[in-house]
Each structure stands twice: as C-alpha cells, then as structure tokens.
C-alpha cells in the first residue's frame, strides 16, 4: 500500500464517498469560501450540537443498524456521541440540517409505519423500519446527482459503521486490533469466521 491509496481507502464507505469527509476528488468540487466561513461560525457556537436525549436516541438507532450479536453492538461503542461530534465538526451546514431534520423524519416514519415513536417500538419494529429506510436511501443514492442533497438515513448508517468499526469496542471485539504487528506475512491461512484486522 502506498501513501495515497492508504487514506483514500478509508474515505470510501458503503460503495460511495464518505459524507462530509470531502476526502476524494475534492480538488474538483471545492466548497466555496462563503460556505467555509459559515461552517466556521457554526462550529464556534457554545451550545452542544445535540442534547443528551438525542445522543441516547442515536445510540438506539445505531444499535438497530449494528446490534449486539456474539460481539457488542453500536450502543456499546457510544456511536451516538461520535455522530454528534462528526456532524458538528465535519458536516457542511446544509448536511447538518439534513441530519437534524432526518431525526424528525425518522420519528414520523416510525409513527406512520408502527403507530408509535422509535424508542417505544419493539426491536422487531425498529429493524423493520430501518430496513425500509435503508432501501429508500439506497434507491435515492443510486439515482441522485453529485450536487443533490444526501439522504439522512445514509448519514445515520454511514456514521454508525464508521463510528462502530473505528471505536475501541468495534476494533477490538468485532475486529482484531494489532497496534504493533512487528512483522509482515503476505500469505496466512484464513478460515470463515475469523475476524478482519481493524486497520489496514
């Protein structure tokens, strides 16, 4: 691996470019100076970007996307707090709005589909709802133009995956984390079920 593909690999997630990361092809689509200034101002506001209740809510959404199985789920990795940091610091103002409005949309969709809010829903109802929203975002992302707004559920799913698999819990429990391998072996046996390395 060379210095360039090392980091571009990280930037691609779920078959697309990480939202807000602006990692790839960014010399072709630089945000304007004005947008940058707005983002800077937004970042300076003192008030926490998301309330504790919202963070707890996001942890439940995350847990439905990546639930506890034989390994801990997204809630154990506190992906809610991670999302709050990422959306506040890394998202453009327009993406921040989509994310925040998305929380309301998700709640409305839950009411519509299950007749109750997300938190009041059973695990099965939560899974059914988010599966439907994932199908919706996949369909949307497939046809959307580069400039069109991102889908809020793509954000939620992407941030859950990124937050979980790069967390201590995800890296060490779901994946195998080796801080200092000490050697390189380019051909070791692998059997189905062996966990992947946490970093490449």
């Amino acid at each position: 691996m060379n210095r360039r593909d090392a980091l571009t690999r990280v930037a691609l997630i779920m078959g697309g470019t990480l939202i807000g990361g602006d990692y790839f092809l960014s010399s072709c689509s630089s945000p304007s100076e004005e947008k940058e200034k707005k983002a800077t101002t937004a970042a300076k506001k003192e008030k926490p970007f998301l309330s504790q209740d919202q963070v707890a809510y996001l942890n439940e959404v995350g847990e439905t996307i990546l639930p506890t199985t034989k390994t801990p789920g997204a809630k154990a990795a506190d992906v809610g707090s991670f999302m709050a940091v990422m959306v506040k610091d890394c998202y453009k103002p327009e993406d921040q709005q989509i994310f925040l409005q998305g929380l309301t949309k998700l709640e409305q969709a839950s009411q519509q589909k299950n007749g109750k809010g997300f938190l009041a829903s059973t695990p099965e109802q939560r899974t059914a709802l988010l599966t439907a929203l994932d199908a919706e975002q996949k369909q949307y992302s497939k046809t959307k133009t580069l400039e069109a707004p991102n889908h809020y559920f793509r954000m939620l799913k992407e941030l859950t995956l990124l937050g979980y698999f790069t967390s201590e819990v995800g890296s060490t429990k779901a994946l195998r984390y080796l801080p200092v391998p000490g050697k390189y072996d380019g051909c070791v046996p692998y059997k189905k079920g062996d966990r992947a390395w946490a970093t490449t």
Partner: protein
Amino acid sequence: MEKNTYDAIVIGSGISGGLAAKELTEKGLKTILLERGRNVEHIKDYVNANKAPWELPHRGGKTQQMMADHPVLKRDYTLNESNLEFWVDERESPYVEVKPFDWFRGYQVGGRSLMWGRQSYRWSDYDFEANAKDGVAVDWPIRYKDLAPWYSYVEKFAGISGNRDGLPQLPDGDFMPPMEMNCVEKDVAARIKKNFKNRHMVIGRTANITVAHNNRTNCQYRNKCWLGCPFGAYYSTQAASLPAAVATGNLTLRPFSIVTKILYDKDTKRAKGVEVLDAETNQTYEYFAKIVFLNASTLNSAWVLMNSATDVWPEGLGSSSGELGHNLMDHHFRAGAHGEMPGYEDKYVYGRRANGIYVPRFRNLFGDKRDYIRGFGYQGGAGREGWSREIAEMSIGGELKDALSEPGNWTMGLGAFGETLPYHDNRAFLDKTKKDKWGLTVLALDASIRDNEQKMRIDMMQDAQEMLEKAGLKNVKTYNNGYAMGGGIHEMGTARMGRDPKTSVLNAHNQVWDAPNVYVTDGACMTSSACQNPSLTYMALTARAVDHAVSELKKQNV
C-alpha cells in the same frame, strides 16, 4: 560577525538539506542548518504516532474548520487530523495560482521527509539520456555512471529495502532484504510476466528498514509512517541524517530561520553568506560561510535565488540563463485501474506493510513506440476489503455487522505516476503584489500538463486494465480522477542542471554557474522528471555535490 561565521550553510532541513548537513559535518565542516519552521524532535514530537484510531475524535477525518484553514491541503488525502501539525499554515504563507497548482508544503525541521511516501528508485540512462535523444529542453550534464556510486552510498546510509530485479530501466541498488508480496500480488506478478514481454511487477523499494540499522529499529509493520515513526524505521532527517550530523559536534541547527537571500559578493563572484529573518522575532541576521547548500525544496529554492543578488541580476542569482523559475515539473497521477480477484478466500495477511508493488516503466522502451514520449510506472497493491465495503444484498442488522467483521474479497489497484516534460513556460515567478505574514513577496505558479501527458494518461488507464485482466482480475474499472500540477508532491525543476551556463542554472556538480560556492541539490536542480519517485536521486546528487564542494574547498576553488 565572527560569531555568525561557519564553514558551510545549509538552507532547509528536509530530505536533501538534512543529508547535506550530515555529509558536511562528517567531513569536518562547521555547519549551520537553517530551517524556516519549528523544531520537531524525533519521537517526542510525533504526537499521534502511538494513538489508537479511536483516540482521534474524527478518526483521522477532515473537519470543516481544517478545510477552511487549509484550502490547498484539503484537495487530497494530505489534509488529515492525524498529522495536521506537519503541514504548512497556509494563511501565513500564501502563494498565487495562475493555473491550479497543489503545493503541499512541510515547514518544520525534517520538512516533508517526515511525511514522504518513501518509495526509492534509481534512475537509469534511459532517463539521463532522454532529453538529448528526444531533443527536449537540455541534456543532463551527468549520466548514470556518475551517480551510481552515490546511489549506493545513500542507499547504504538510508536503508532501502528492495529486491534485485535485474531490470535495466530500474537499476538495482544496495538493498536491505525486500518486503514480501502477498499471495495475490505474487500470482498477479507471475501472470504479468507470462503475458507481457517487458512488463514486470516487483515489490516496492522503500526507505523502510527491514533490519535494524544505525540505532534504528526495523519496520514494525504498523503502516503509520506519516505520523512520524517512534522506531525510526523509515528514513527521515530526524531518524537518520540529523543524529549523524549532531554526533560530529559540528552542527548548529537553527529553526525559525527564513532565509530571505543569499548574500553575493560582486568582487569575488561568490556567495558570502545568507540573510535570515527570524520567523518568531522578525529580527534580521546575517550568517557567513565559504559554501552554501540551498535545499529549501524546489519552489522555495527558486524563491531564494530570485531574491538574491538582484543588484547584479534583476531576476536573481542564477537568472543569467533566463531559465531560473522555468521548466517546473511534477509527476502526473490519479489514473489507473482496479478490480477484484476471485478466490483466495482462505488466504489473508498478517501485519500492515508500509509499502506496495511497483511496475517500472515499459512504454517507449525496448522498441515500443507510442504517440507520446517517455512513460510511467505503477504503484499499487492487493488486499482484502474491510468493513467499509458495500454488501449490496444486505441492509442493516446483526447479519450485516457479522459479515463486515470478516474480510471481504481481494481487490487490487494500479495507479500510475507519469513523467512530465520540462516545458519552459511552466514556471514560478515572484508576485510582488502579494506578501506573506512576514511581508515577503510570494511565488506565483503558472504550470500545466500538455498534450504529451494527456495522451500518456490514456495508456496509464488502459495498460493497467489490460494487465489486471490478463492477470485474472474481474470487474476491472479504469479511472482518471483528474490532476493539477503539484499534486504528485514531486515538484522538480526551476533551477536545472546543464552543460551550458547560457541554458541552465546549475552545472554538472549542482553549482550555480554564477556563484560556484552555491550548490542547489533539491528537486530544483532536475533537468527532466523521469517517472520514478525522485527523493533518492536528490540524496545521491546531494552526497555527490558535498564531496565535490569539500574537495574544491581544499583546492581553494570555491
């Protein structure tokens, strides 16, 4: 004045300046190494080198604030939370882009030797003879035989791991044991060899030591080089040349020292020293020496020359040829192909190899002839996909999580680095209307690739596709992600070497024709760009030039 007098001055402490200081001090010269940025102490100042991914709040990503602060750096992977402190503060040091030019600078002790890609390749006579044969620009004043012993010399000091592949276009060196290809790469290499007469895939030759060397620990396969290596396993000023220079007792290192000009003595026709602006105090100082090595990195070396001896030459020291600032080059890249390798589900790797594979140039060599001149090499590698892959048939839930916790398919990519021709009108010049934080005139950059490079880019994609498909990869896709000059971070030219003072800035020993005690041995000196990563060549030229300078000093010729 006595207090500020040394035997030698080195301007810039990156990969070539650090080595110049080491060579000069080891030859007994009292040397001052001037660096415009802050000090970075080996190990101690590698603040993120030992952090786990989850200890970085944005997991290495870019924040909106970082992007606002680094409008140039954000254009590539270079803007990253994990080593932000190694890149220039763009607001303090602006430049003008007449045409888009990605200038990624490292203003600190060690310069970009801290973040470099470490790929280390010799050039061959196919490269040194190219300009003369093609009638392009001017001929290199040296040939491979002039540089070969110096390549060996710096390889032995730096520690370059690589395989002796016996390829004439990529001469073998004095290597440490090579890193290993993984099983897919080995298979692809064998199939390329079988299917193509003159195409070869070899393990990358990298300045990561594979055995302990000069108090440095061998590579631990963390693949975190760009954060600074606490093991000193890759070559950098801090890990290698600086400790060697310090050990002689002959070195003075002065950070925060912006060299604003070389002081030129009209009577002796020699440089007598340099003027330094202290970046912290804004005080001006003068330092004097018999020899000056200019290693400020390509574009800043041109800038120093343009600001020097302007009373004699209005366009600066070395401008009498009309070539100072001209012939700016880089390697154009961001084109290639990638695909999926079926099978090998029962194979994986252990460790994170800080290296990839390399396909040396094959175009316009050995009887091949294209509708463009020169060629390109590929860097790349194979690996199994990680958790960030898309599993189209899965949505959310435990099944997805467990599937992403296992490695995915093997994929492989080849990305080309292509030679850029030295066009006279690709240039850097002073824009006197704009000033930096210290009130100094800034550079304007006006350069672009042309027809020859654009034609080459088509082959850069198609050849990669052809090779990967012949090697058994499926779903092979080409890419051309566009390129602006500078993005290769291999800036070269602006003070080229040559045989004639009328058409070149430097002679065969890197001496400025108009001031023979000034040596320029960073990328500025390059007469053509070849397609190999250039740092090893700067190092070899530097060691050779120091040897020359000290011998000339003894003969009282400089």
